[in-house]
Each structure stands twice: as C-alpha cells, then as structure tokens.
C-alpha cells in the first residue's frame, strides 16, 4: 500500500501506468466489481433476450402489444424531449444571464423533480387530473380526459425529466459567462441572433448531452408512468410497463426480448454519450 501511494501519488496530473502490486490489486478489484456489478446484468439481458435467436427476438418485439409499447415509448420521447429542451434553455438563459431576486430559489425549484420519487410524481398528477382530483371534474365537464390517456404519460414524463437539460446547461453557461453575448449585442445583434450564432455554438454539445440524458430517462421511466397509465394494452403501455406485464403473463421470453430492446437503446445512449463527451472536452 505504502509504495503504491508513494509512486502513484507523485506527479498526479495525468493517469499513469500502474507499477506496484497494490495498484494492480486496486485495478483488479475494479475489474471484478465492474464485471459483477455492471457488465453481468448487461450480458444477462442481451444473452437471454437473444437466447432463441434473432428471429424469435424480432417476433417477440413485433407482437402487436409490444410493438405498440415501443411506439408509445418513442412517441413520448418525441413529445417530451423537445419541450424540455426549450424549457431547459430558457431556464438556463434566465438564471445564468441575469441576476434577480429569488434566483437561487428558482434554481432550487428547477431541481425539485430530480429528487422526487417517481411514485410521488405519479401521485401528484393523479391528485390534479384524476376524477377526484383538483382539476379532473372541471376538465371532464369539458370532455377533456387526461388521466389514463397518453396525455398523462406525457405530463408525468415532462415532470420527471424537466431538470435534465437545465442541469447540464446551467453550470456550463455560468462558467462561460456572458462576455461573448454582450460583445455581439454591442455589435448590434438582436436576441435571437445572439442565441443562434453565439450561445448555441458554445453550448450545443452540453445541450445534446442533456437531451440524451432526458431521452434515456423518458424511455425508461417506470414508477410515475405506472401510476397514471391505467395499463390498457396496446394503448397506454410503455415499454418498461410492458416488460412487467409480460413477466406477469408468464411470457418470460417476451419480457426479456422487450428488455433487451431497451438495453440496446441504453448501449446506444452510452456510446453517444462517450462521443459527446469527447466533443465537449474539445
């Protein structure tokens, strides 16, 4: 232990080749834990999902109920992510480009959904739009239904993922400061021009990164959606809910096929994230 710290603590900027046995044993521990905790679940889902071959996997995913669940999941992402991008950009612009009373409080408020249990997120929407909720009866008298429709799924997904883009942008924009934008302003650019030509190029990778995290969460959200979905097959089932349903239908092969589809999406997310991080880094 002593030698390892001795050698490796020295000249700490930049990673080094491990030279001591102790260093290697730390790395070995990371290998073992990484394999057991992170790699195995991934391998298991993919291996089980494709156990009966590609054709069987495809057939399971093309089952009408599962296919619809895939479609609804994608649709939810298409609806939710752009809205939360707009919100995230607005919120980040507001709190990093202006100083105003209540700014800190607002930043905390933006963060709230991040720390709320998904079940609570579902519950609060039930108490707002359910038939016994605050607005439910009023909306119903206008013939508008939100609970147990795709609208409720969109709304809870918006709630759960609303901070994702803002959280990525705020630290970056704070750090970059507003000198560039102010220079553009003095050159006579208007607000939109400043945003499109000055700000956006500076934040585009962080923005994409935030959008990516937001997408991953929307696709995977389970607890909040399960409270408001009503579990109507081929109507309000998203893919994560469909996995539980198939599992309870004793259709384990179907559940794993759907799960492996989501896992492949997760792998794509991670790869995309790696690429974005390289871009962000320079």
């Amino acid at each position, binding site marked *: 232990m002593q030698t390892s710290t001795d050698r490796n603590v020295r000249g700490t900027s930049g990673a080094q080749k491990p030279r001591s046995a102790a260093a290697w044993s730390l790395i070995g521990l990371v290998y073992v834990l990484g394999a057991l905790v992170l790699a195995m679940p991934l391998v298991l889902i993919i291996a089980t999902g494709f156990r009966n071959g590609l054709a069987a996997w495809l057939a399971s995913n093309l089952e009408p109920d599962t296919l619809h669940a895939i479609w609804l999941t994608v649709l939810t992402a298409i*609806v939710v992510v752009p*809205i939360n991008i707009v919100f995230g950009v607005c919120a980040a612009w507001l709190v990093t480009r202006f100083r105003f009373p209540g700014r800190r409080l607002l930043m905390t408020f933006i963060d709230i959904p991040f720390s709320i249990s998904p079940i609570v997120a579902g519950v609060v929407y039930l108490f707002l739009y359910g038939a016994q909720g605050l607005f439910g009866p009023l909306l119903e008298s206008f013939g508008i*239904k939100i609970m147990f*429709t795709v609208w409720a799924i969109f709304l809870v997904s918006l709630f759960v993922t609303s901070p994702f883009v803002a959280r990525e942008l705020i630290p970056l924009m704070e750090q970059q400061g507003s000198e560039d934008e102010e220079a553009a302003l003095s050159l006579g650019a208007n607000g939109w021009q400043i945003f499109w030509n000055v700000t956006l190029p500076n934040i585009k990778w962080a923005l994409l990164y935030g959008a990516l995290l937001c997408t991953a969460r929307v696709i995977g959200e389970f607890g909040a959606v399960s409270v408001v979905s009503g579990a*109507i097959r081929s*109507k309000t089932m998203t893919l994560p809910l469909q996995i539980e349903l198939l599992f*309870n*239908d004793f259709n384990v092969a179907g559940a794993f096929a759907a799960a492996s589809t989501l896992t492949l999406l997760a792998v794509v997310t991670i790869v995309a994230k790696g690429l974005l991080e390289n871009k962000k880094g320079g």
Partner: protein
Amino acid sequence: MKKLLSGLALAAALSSPVLAQPTDILNVSYDISRELFEAVNAKFVPSYAADAGVTVTVNQSHAGSSKQAGLIKEGLEGDVVTFNQVIDIDTLAKAEYVAADWKAKFANNASPFYSLPAFLVREGNPKAINGWADLAKDGVQIIFPNPKTSGNGRYTYLAARAWATEEYASDEAKIEEYLKKVFANVPVFETGGRAATTTFVENGIGDVLITFEAEVLGTLKIAGEDKFDAVSPAVSLLAEFPVAVVDKVVDARGSRAIAEAYLNYLYSPEGQDIAGAFFHRVHEEAAVAKYAGQFPEVRLVTVEDVFGGWDKVQPEHFAEGGLLDKVFLNQ
C-alpha cells in the same frame, strides 16, 4: 417553440376522441382473466365482423377487480367491465357508471361463467393441505391476493369464513380466531390474483396458493403437473364473474352496440366453449357436458346463503373497520 407546437399537434392527432362511431372497446377486467379474454377477443372480432360488418378492436386492461373499479371511477374509460365480484360492479352502479339493475341485463345474474376458490400446492402436497382447516396450522405459508384490492382475495376470505361458520356453529369468537391465524400465515398480499400466482409459482414463496379454480387448473397446465398439485376443498364458495356495460362510457362514446354484442358473445356457445377451455365453469349445456370431466365435485355455498347477500357483505365485512379489518391485522 415550433417543435413544441408540432409535438403537441402530433400528440393531439393521436389521442383526440373519435367523434365518429368508435370501432374499439375497452374491456376492464380482473387480473387472472388475461389468457381467457385474449382467446375470447380473437374469436369475437371475426364473429362480430360477420354479423355487423365492422371489424372492431377489443382492448384489455387487467388488475385486481376492485382496483379496476376504482380506476374506472378515477376516469379509466372502460366500455365493459368483466369483474369477479358483484360489489365491484355495485360500486360502479352507486357512482352511476352502470345501471342500477345491471344484474337483470344478462342471464344468470349477469354472470356468464363462474368458479370457486381452490388450492394449488407444491408437488406431493408436503404440508398436507386438504381443506380450510389446514390453513390455520402453524408453519403453513399461504398466498392469496389482498382482499382490499382483489375480488379473488375477498372470495378467499369469504370462503374461509363460510367454512368456519359451519365448523364453529357460528361462534364468532372462534371464527375470528381461525381467520386471524389464516391471515397471519400470509407472508405477502399481492394486489392482484396474477401477481399472487407469480409469487407462488415463479418466486417459490408459500406452501399453498388460494385462487380461483380456473387459475389453479390453468397454472397447473402451464407450470407443470410434476411441480404442483391441485387441491379442491370439500366445500367452497360460488364465485360468480359478473359483467356489465359501463353506460356512462358507452353513451359518451357511442359504443353501446359493440359493448352489448361483446357481453352477449360470452353467453354464446362459442363464448362458453372458450370459457370452459380456460377452466371456468359454464352454464351452456354443450359446454357443460364437454368440460364436466375437468372439474372435481365441490359442495358450493353462496354469499346469499351464508352471508345474506352482497348488500350485507359490503358494509359488514369490507367497509373500513369492518369484520375483515378485525382479522386482517398485518395489512
């Protein structure tokens, strides 16, 4: 902003209420009827197309019967309900979703088929569970769904109570003591019948699963007779599976014709045959004869005989602080 609007427009286009005559209905059902209605719907759609010239879609939602009734009151737009308990439709009638005289709208108390609580035990019945008395023994782990959310679970409670009422000659103290022991032997109350089956079969928890005979025999067929045994208690409770058209919904949507045709189909020879094939006891003669062999002889008592009808059962047993709450201590 443009993206936001186009996203909303897209969503609106996808979910806007159909103003024309709808060609789909939603059947809100109990938990273990998943396979049954999948088979029914597959046959109903072509049959209705032949009769009415319209190809319809029947959507399904499954969960504990009482949970489903609650979801409908909370706004789930079911056109028909196929439940497993009278009081779950009664509560909808009280909230004016369903006609007050719903039981008279279809034959046999609006119950196209029926079943009874029965037992599924592990191969060889190692804990020797042969009847209701054995459930109160120390060291027996019982699985049945939560009576607060599941009609299935309530039938189990009522059936055990019916047996105890006979056994202890209506001595309420003894009945309660027995039921308390039974409930204390339940390690987990799942909210629906299917989750209870999964817990027992897949997760290997418990010595006996109490659920509808239809689920017991169906599970035995899927999970393997070499792993489980079905046990029929000598006496059990008639479990009617009532159906109703949700008037409030079909009138708003204009889907009454399909909804009624759907429920009538359950009474047709084909409908009854499918129900029988999925181990439900039926009324139609040909189907009764065809499937007689798969059902053991069980003496059935009814809620009317033992408890004086569902109107009394609901307030006495299932209301907050009722008789169920007295024995369901670990809820």
